[in-house]
Structures are given as C-alpha cells and as structure tokens.
C-alpha cells in the first residue's frame, strides 16, 4: 500500500524535493547568473563600440541602419495597415533598402512581444517600433536589456516615468481627425432629418469602442463634439467590444446599436466589422484608419485617419543624425499627421467638402479647439478644472482641455452629457 501511494505521489514530491535542494544553492546560481549577464553586457558593449564611434561622427551611417517593427496585426487590419504605410513612407523618404526593414507581424500583447523585441535587437536593429497599447510593458523590458537600441511605442504613456533614455512614446492628435469626421457625420444627420428619414428628436449616433480607456473615450468624445458642432440635437450611445480587433464582435456591436435606434455609426476598433453591418442595414458609417468605401460603398462617409509617416521618418532620421528622440511625440493636422480619408461622394451630404475645409483650416490655424469647454457639460455643469489622480497637471486652461500636450497618449477620460455607454 505504502509503496503504491509513493509511486502515485512521485510526480509531485520528487519535483518539490529537487526544488528545495535547489534553494540551498540558489545564491550560487545567482552569482553564476550575474556573471553571464555581465559577460553578455560586456559583449554588447564591445559590439556597440563601433556604433558609438560612429555616433560621435553623427549617428549611424544610413547603410548600416536597421529598423524593426512589431505589429499587433497584419495588412488586413486597418490600424496596422496604417502603421505599415507610415513605415513605407519613411523607407522611401530616407531611401532605405528592403533588408534594412524587419517586420514582425501579428505579435499579441503578451510576452511574445518581448521575445520579438529582443530578437529584432539581436538581428541588429538600431531602432524598434511597436504599435499596440498592450506592448508597452514588454517594450520597457527589452529597452532595459538593450540600452543602445531606441524603442518607440505608439499610444503608450510610460516612457517619461520609466527613466530609460532609449524608451519613447508617440501618438498623433487623432482627436482632430475624429472631430472633422464628426462634422461630416453631423452634416449627414442634418440631411437625414431634412429628408424626413429621421425624426428630429431621435438623432442618435452609435459608437463601437474597443476598451473603456482614455484613448477611446477621448476619441468618441471628439467625434461627438464634431457631430454636435453642426447637429446640436444629436446624442450618442457607445458599446465596447473589449478587443482592439475582432470583426465578429464589432459587427455584432454595430448591429445591436442599429437595432437600438442608432441612425449613424462610427468606430474605434480596427476591423471592417461595423461598416459591414452598416452596409447591410443601410446605415451611414464613419470608419477609422482606412477608407471603408470598398467595404461599404453606399454607406461609408469617410474615416478618421492617422499618418504615422512623419513620426517614423523623424525618429529614424534622429538615429541617423545621432540626435535624441522626443520622449513624448504628438503632432496633428497642422504637421500632416492627421487627416480624414476621401469623402464618399455618393453618401455625404451636399456642402460637406466646403465645411470640412473650413473646419480643417480652423484647426490648423489653432482657432478651433476640439475640447472647448463651452461646447459640452459634465453632469449638467461646465468643466472648470481637471486633474488626474496623483498628478498636479491642470488640463483646463484658456477655455479648453489641453489634450495630448502633457504626454503623447490621450488623456481625456470624462463622460460628457449626451453620451451614454452600454456595458461597463
């Protein structure tokens, strides 16, 4: 009996024993570990010596440069497609060859990202970009191990507090594109009311959001403010998918919003799920990242989009020149980092083009502020002051919320009047 039981327990107990045996020699193991680590870093130093000498001459010679990209999706997914387009713009602008660009596709937001980043560094990349929010902590890990490689992370916010000089965050003023696309939507709503297709008291917009993060909240709020600037009676309903890119969930969410009475849909999620649902239901839709006209030829109005080219070009050029890359980089319409995609002539209301031009000019000139506090209320009151937890930064000054000025990642995370969210 005893013997049998012992065999039964062998699997666990043997392991436990051997582990505790290890514990005794743990300090030794650690020293050994440290030794290999220091050896490794020494090796890294000697390797980078060549680079440093060149850096003193002014960065890294263009021909010796290697650029790595970590993408959460592939070209079939709008968000990554936009990033890829930006990378190709950089390649063309700086005249790099194909083998100087290494791309890792479909890297999920888990430890795979660290593996990918380290592997790119091993392959000799001097600068590595990652494009998804959840990649950030793994990029930080890799940045610690490769102090000579520049790590640039889009949509993140931890570079400034990380204390690492080779970690950088970047984003664009996408709220400006969203605002302009909201104006296009608002004009369409007005036309629908005018045509008697929609009752004036039932102008409700639906929004398919990814996660309840500041980036998404800032996005839909700016879109809504754009809508309301031309169609003041509009309200909005937001539904989260809790995923950045899921065709099925986005389509379902759009369908649910439409059956809930929404007469126009927009999205902050990466696939063509919502436009597909809208085309089937004949509901106008404003997309994100890429033009949705191919998916929804009758109903897509336009899409809020980001051009990543200016940043990627700037960052890589900085490495070539041996200059420091901004810890937080954020630019917008004025610098060509934001725009809306082509207007669908078959779907938009007449006069849209002129109005869009007017709004765009005002944004570029700095006379129009998207988060103008006189344009919205929170709990029935005007927002006078806003500080984030544990920070002393006052976001509201001169009558508007200073979005993306104190860090590249969006900060506006307030639910304003007129918007309701379903789910959590």
């Amino acid at each position, binding site marked *: 009996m005893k013997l049998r039981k012992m065999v039964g327990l062998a699997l666990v107990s043997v392991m436990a024993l051997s582990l505790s045996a*290890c*514990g005794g020699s743990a300090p030794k193991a650690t020293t050994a570990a440290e030794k290999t680590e220091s050896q490794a870093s020494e090796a890294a130093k000697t390797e980078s010596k060549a680079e440093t000498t060149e850096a003193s001459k002014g960065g890294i010679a263009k021909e010796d440069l290697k650029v790595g990209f970590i993408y959460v999706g592939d070209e079939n997914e709008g968000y990554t497609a936009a990033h890829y387009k930006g990378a190709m713009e950089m390649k063309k602008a700086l005249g790099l060859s194909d083998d100087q660009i290494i791309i890792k596709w479909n890297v999920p937001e888990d430890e795979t990202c660290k593996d990918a980043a380290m592997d790119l560094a091993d392959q000799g990349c001097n600068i590595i970009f990652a494009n998804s929010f959840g990649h950030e902590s793994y990029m930080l890990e890799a940045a610690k191990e490769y102090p000579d490689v520049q790590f640039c992370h889009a949509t993140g916010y931890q570079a400034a507090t990380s204390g690492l000089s080779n970690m950088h965050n970047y984003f664009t003023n996408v709220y400006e594109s969203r605002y302009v696309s909201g104006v296009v939507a608002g004009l369409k709503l007005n036309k629908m009311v005018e045509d008697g297709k929609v009752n004036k008291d039932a102008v409700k917009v639906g929004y398919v959001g990814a996660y309840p993060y500041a980036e998404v909240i800032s996005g839909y709020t700016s879109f809504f403010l754009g809508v309301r600037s031309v169609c003041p009676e509009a309200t909005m309903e937001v539904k989260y998918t809790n995923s950045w890119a899921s065709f099925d969930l986005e389509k379902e969410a759009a369908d649910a919003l439409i059956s809930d009475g929404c007469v126009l849909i927009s999205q902050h999620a990466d696939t063509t799920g919502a436009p597909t649902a809208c085309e089937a239901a004949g509901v106008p839709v404003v997309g994100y990242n890429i033009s949705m006209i191919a998916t929804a030829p009758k109903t897509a109005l336009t899409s809020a989009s980001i051009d990543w080219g200016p940043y990627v070009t700037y960052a890589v050029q900085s490495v070539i020149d041996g200059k420091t890359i901004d810890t937080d980089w954020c630019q917008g319409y004025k610098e060509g980092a934001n725009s809306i995609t082509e207007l669908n002539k078959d779907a938009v209301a007449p006069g849209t083009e002129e109005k869009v031009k007017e709004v765009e000019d005002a944004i570029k000139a700095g006379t129009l502020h998207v988060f103008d506090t006189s344009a919205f209320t929170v709990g029935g009151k005007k927002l006078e002051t806003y500080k984030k937890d544990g920070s002393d930064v006052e976001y509201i000054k001169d009558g508007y919320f200073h979005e993306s000025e104190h860090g590249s990642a969006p900060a506006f995370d307030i639910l304003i009047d007129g918007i309701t969210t379903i789910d959590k």
Partner: protein
Amino acid sequence: MSKGKEPVFQMTKRDAIEPWKAWMIRLIAVALSLVVCAGVIIALTGLNPVEVYKGIFDGAVGTKRRAWMTIRDTLVLLCIAVGITPAFKMRFWNIGAEGQILIGGVTSAAMMIYLGNTLPPVILFPLMLAGSALAALVWAIIPAFFKAYWNTNETLFTLMMNYVAMQVVTFGIIFWENPKGSNSVGTINSATKGGWLPKLFGLEYGWNLVIVLALTIAMFVYLRYSKQGYEIAVVGESGNTARYAGINVKKVILRTMAISGAVCGIAGFIIVSGASHTISTSTAGGRGFTAIIVSWMSKFNTFAMILVSFFLVFMQKGAGQIASQFNLNENAADVITGIILFFILGCEFFIDYKVRIRSAKQAGSEE
C-alpha cells in the same frame, strides 16, 4: 477469368512491424511532405522553397536566443502533453488542460505578487510549485468527481471549466492591474525578479528543463511499469472489464485526473514563474489543445512527445520568421505544418497495414 474483381490495391493488417521499418516509413513521409510543400510554396508564392525552409530553420534555432525560446516553448508544450496523457489513456476526454494551466498560472502569479519579495527562494519555489499543482488538481478533480459518481459528460464539463478559469484570470488581471487602466498585469516583480525561477547551471531555462524532463521520465515509468498505470489502461479499454477485475473505477478516475491536473498546474507554474513572468488570458494560449495532438500523435509515449512537441514549436517559431523575412502571412507556415502533419499521420496507415499492388502477372493468372 471469374476472379476479375480483385482490387488493384490489397490491404492487409500487419501483425507487427520492425521499428526500423516503421521509422523508415515515417522518414519517407516527412521527405515526401517536404517535396509537396515545396510545390505548394512555388505555386502560391513563387519563392524558392529551399530559402523558405532555411528561413523556418533560422527562425526556430538560428540564434542562441531563438533556440532557447524554441526549447522553452517545447518544454511547456511537452509538460502539458505529459499532463493530459494519463487522462486520455483512461479515455477520459480532458479538454480542460487550458483551464488547469490558467489556474496553476494564476496561483503562481498570486504567490509571486504577495510572497515573491519576502519568502526565501528555498521555501518560495517549492511552495509555488506545490500550490499551482494543488490548485489545478482541485480544478481537474471537479469534473472527474461528477464523471465518477454521476457519469456526466467530461468533454463538455472540462471545456466549460476552461471558460470559468478564463474568468478567474480576468478577475485577477483587473485586481492586480499594473499600471492601472492597462488591462494587463505587466511583468511581475520586474525590478526584484522575486518569484522568477533562477538560472540553473548557468542556463536561463535550466529549471524548466529539469522539471519537465523529470516529469516526462516519471510519467513514462508510472504509465508503463506501475500497477496504477496498468489500471488506467484497463479502465480506458473497458470500465466493465475493470470492474470485473476488481478495480475501483471511481477511484482510478479521481486519482488519474488529480495527477493530470497537477501536472498541468505545474505547466502553469513553469510558464508564469519560469518563462513569461506575467499572467494573462493568453497564458495557456491554446497549448492545452495542441497538447492533445502531441499526446495522441505520440501514442501516449512521453518520450515521443519530446519530438512531436519540438516539431510543432519549431514550425511555429519558423512561421514567425518566414512571415517577417518573406513578408508571407503566418498562415503560409500553417499550410506547411498542415501538409507535414497530414503526411506524418497518414503514414501511420502504412505502418499498420501492408499494401500489395495487384501485379499484371497475378491478374493474368487463373489461380
């Protein structure tokens, strides 16, 4: 003349086949599959297949780091396959490994967070290992209990338990979220490395290697040479026979699932403490299901599982590389893996059966 209906191919079951012949057949199958893959690669992409194979090889073991990543993931897959094997040998369709890994992993993560920086390693690591094994053991024994006493469907039950485990992990993520609002736990104790399995013999994944190989050997011995292993086989063949032979079937089911769950829990511990140092809903990453393929392809031989899990991970790592190097979608590598698997599985037919082609002489003869 009357015997004209004799088929062109005649199949007869082999009694036995010499191992070297069986391995020859398998080798020929792999070679053939590579030829077919080459054809597919040329037809679909126009690339040089040799370059693509080189890319796969390079991606899996091309640098020291890549080789270690491949070994690390092979060990995890192997550990899970070893874990689910006793259950499958008992014909208990345990598709709940995914959940058992997550529960083991979340237990390890909790200990790393709460005890990782305070307890000495000599206590911490055995505690983490035992705790993860125990938690997953309990998780696995629940469906086993219902199966043993009320004959519930274990396939559905274990599958459903995966979703519950997923929710437990989601809760843990929100509870331990770091930084707040990121919807992820991030790297646990990234500064202190508390609760990270230390290096062994200077190897980053030395402990993973030792633990998993020890489990592989122990499981082989347990299944092949122990009385309990024999009981598992008998229950798997027929519950009634087992009962007739005086085996307590209920007890065997409970005990076997307990072992199965515990090993899967250890896999969770290895992933969290020994590899990823974080917990997320993708910690198991479908490997609880892939391990089923590994286990069956190896015919429950834990040593064969080393090869099979290495092959699958090798292809997966290679897939990422060719996607990156040739701008091919990763699905291209899935196609290649699929073709190779098809041949490997298909060749088992030729190992079990002898195929005789009716020769012209035979067809012509009267007899």
